[in-house]
């Protein structure tokens, strides 16, 4: 909302953002991050979703209207600059226990002990990149803070990373800063969490686990880099629970997923990085924000026609309200992820299927009745204003034609726009027939891939 107001103000149009009561603090911080700290907001008491028309009317006329008038007519106050420590400044000296307490009390840690980011440790990390410590990888909302290579090293140290992880960390923050990813949405209320997927020779080089327990903690590269991601969101982007991070529940950061590239090579399947346009043999990180996931246990059968319906059902039942990223809010941006254990992928490959064939079959099978699809986007929810039907969205160009092929409300429609929107990774216990499926948060954390560049030395 604030971002729309900022765009309007930049175009010279005065604005007021109608903001539900619980979001006032976030609005102020976001406005500052947008460079318009005096952007006016008008409070709507409570939350509109649970108010009757009469209650909402009383609240708007009793409270909100005055804020709108005030916001459009009063001269905003002049803003002043925030003061922050200089790059490389020593902010604290003390014992490791004191350092941990100090970082925690000042909101710089996630509650677990951190490795103190001493000058020597940060320096060791910086030796593992050719990039200058002060180079800016991007500017991150909501705090609009500069994402420098130095702050990557500092948060890497704190998260428990090893110095040689530095090229991966730099690539991750380049991905975070890519406008296609949309880091500024990271504080939205569904509270989805990013999954990092690693590909290429860097997997073996840094010792990522890609076998049994691929998403379990216990492996330094997978675990600490996952933690680094969230520490960077906290300390540099500025997402703090009770302030700018309004995730209703949220969940903890995800352990990094590395693909089993040995298995993929044997099957002649492409990797996630290759699907994303990277060259074979190139190391890369892919980030994508997922609302949640579930395991599909004991996939039974020897032939694709026995296996595909269960895998497709997993996708179809997990992508629920998230269909608003398939149509409506962002057309064709829903990219669920199916992680197959190697033995499942190999069984499909043995039947002659490429990854793309599997995607096509899943696309055909992962379908739900149109009436159910419409309830997710505008019946049980109010996620798409005006409660449009799929036919109306197709007519407006906000949905692909496949969603309006008949008038039958029980016709089956896909949950993604095209077959290739279903991402498939191969990882996990090589000899167990389980799969994992994630539903995606669309443009609010869109799938983004960056190469990992090793230092020349």
């Amino acid at each position: 909302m604030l971002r729309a107001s900022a765009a309007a103000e930049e175009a010279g149009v005065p604005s007021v953002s109608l903001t539900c009561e619980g979001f006032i603090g976030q609005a102020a911080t976001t406005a500052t991050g947008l460079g318009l700290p005096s952007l006016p907001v008008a409070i709507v008491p409570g939350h509109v979703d649970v108010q009757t028309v009469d209650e909402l009317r009383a609240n708007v006329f009793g409270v909100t209207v005055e804020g709108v008038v005030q916001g459009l007519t009063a001269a905003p106050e002049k803003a002043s600059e925030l003061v922050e420590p200089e790059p490389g400044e020593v902010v604290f000296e003390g014992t490791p226990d004191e350092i941990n307490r100090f970082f925690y009390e000042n909101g710089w840690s996630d509650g677990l002990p951190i490795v103190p980011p001493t000058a020597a440790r940060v320096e060791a990390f910086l030796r593992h990149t050719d990039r200058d410590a002060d180079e800016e990888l991007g500017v991150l909302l909501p705090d609009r803070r500069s994402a420098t290579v130095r702050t990557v090293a500092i948060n890497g140290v704190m998260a428990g990373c090893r110095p040689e992880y530095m090229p991966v960390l730099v690539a991750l923050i380049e991905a975070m800063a890519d406008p296609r990813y949309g880091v500024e949405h990271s504080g939205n209320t569904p509270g989805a969490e990013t999954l990092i997927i690693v590909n290429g020779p860097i997997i073996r080089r840094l010792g990522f686990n890609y076998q049994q327990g691929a998403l379990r903690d216990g492996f330094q590269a997978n675990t600490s880099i996952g933690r680094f991601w969230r520490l960077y969101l906290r300390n540099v982007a500025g997402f703090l629970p009770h302030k700018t991070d309004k995730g209703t529940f949220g969940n903890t950061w995800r352990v990094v997923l590395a693909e089993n590239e040995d298995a993929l090579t044997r099957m002649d399947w492409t990797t996630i990085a290759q699907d994303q346009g990277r060259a074979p043999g190139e190391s890369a990180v892919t980030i994508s924000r997922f609302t949640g996931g579930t395991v599909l246990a004991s996939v039974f059968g020897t032939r694709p026609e026995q296996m595909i319906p269960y895998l497709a059902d997993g996708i179809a039942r997990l992508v629920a309200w998230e269909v608003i990223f398939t149509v409506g809010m962002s057309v064709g941006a829903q990219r669920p992820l199916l992680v197959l254990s190697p033995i499942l992928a190999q069984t499909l490959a043995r039947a002659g299927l490429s990854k793309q064939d599997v995607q096509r079959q899943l696309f055909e099978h992962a379908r739900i009745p149109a009436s159910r699809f419409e309830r997710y986007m505008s019946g049980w929810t109010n996620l798409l204003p005006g409660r449009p039907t799929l036919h109306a969205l197709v007519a407006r160009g906000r949905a692909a034609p496949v969603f309006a092929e008949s008038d039958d409300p029980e016709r089956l429609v896909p949950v993604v726009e095209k077959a290739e929107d279903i991402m498939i990774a191969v990882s996990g216990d090589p000899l167990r027939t389980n799969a994992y499926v994630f539903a995606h948060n669309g443009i609010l954390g869109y799938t983004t891939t960056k190469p990992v560049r090793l230092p020349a030395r």
Partner: protein
Amino acid sequence: MEALWVVLPTGQRASGEWIDDTLRRRAQEAGLLARTPLAGKFPRHRVEVVRAADGVEEVNALFEARGWTDGLPITPPTLPRVEAMCATTVRAPSDVLGEVEPLRGEATVEKIAANAVMAGCRPEYFPVVLAAVEAVLDPAFNMRGVQTTDENVAPLLIVSGPLAARLGINAGFGALGPGWRANAAIGRAVRLVMLNLGGGWPGAVSLAGLGQPGRYTLCLAEREDGPWPALHVELGYRPEQSTVTVLRAETAINVTGGLAEVASVMASAASAFTMLYEGRVAVVVAPFVARRLADEGWSKDDVRRWLHAEARVPVAAWQSWWLRATARQWPGWVTEASGTLPVLREPGDITVVVAGADLAIPQLAYFPSWGFPPCRITREIAAPIDLIG
């Protein structure tokens, strides 16, 4: 070396700015930096570690130089003390009660707790402080006006209900001080919030020419043994509830005697502002006087009506006041009066409270008011969690 982990008590805006940067500039312009040489000079964190041989001494020296005290020594707002304060309320430490005008530091529960610790509050006083801060953040209090006016107005806190006695908020001998920690610390906590979160620094932001002792603390409780319904019951609360009521008070004027003397003081302290803006004043009645009036059949309403009728000034006097010509929109009850006119719009603008010592030489008090809009704000006090039964 001692290490004190202190929560910084100063105001941060929702946008992240610290009000001290503005205050340093204002103090510099006003030539007042000698009072606060370290204004704006502090680590921009939630918590600072102060190391010194005598930590309490060092925190006091630092805070005074940064402009974070009222001039008296403070209790360092260490993490355990602030946490103990916050533990008395169900509200989260990050909850924002509002922005404190005029510099708009956010009044979070934790920031208020840090100031309450500094003021000397015991943890169980904290719900009273929270209710009082809520009250002064009500737009009707006009915090911006109170903080920036050239008048010497201060918030007057009146605690009513059973919590007053349980917390030891004095309503009897010396209710306006000194001597009782609750009265002293609760009023002082509200002042520190106004200074440290609102930025009401004297001379730099607050232009009150003289100030007044009530700007250190001005807090009393109402006696529970008075002959009339308690203030909070009059205002519609149940007897078992407790409330804090806030008025804007120019000063406390001592009155020895009875109602006639109060009316006389009300007339001589008549304020053009109060007539213009429907000001609301307070009268503290000594128990001896209250009991005698009640015995003669007087209700609180009778007292208010009588004071309103008797406290009058000559119309000629009003006509000679400078505000008479400056202000345009005088209410009809002023312009249409002939001969004499009352000093208040109506009897209901008088808050009557029974407090003070039960002596036959009764000491009463009159609190004239200042400013606009009409202000008598009451908030219920939540019972402190786990500290008293």
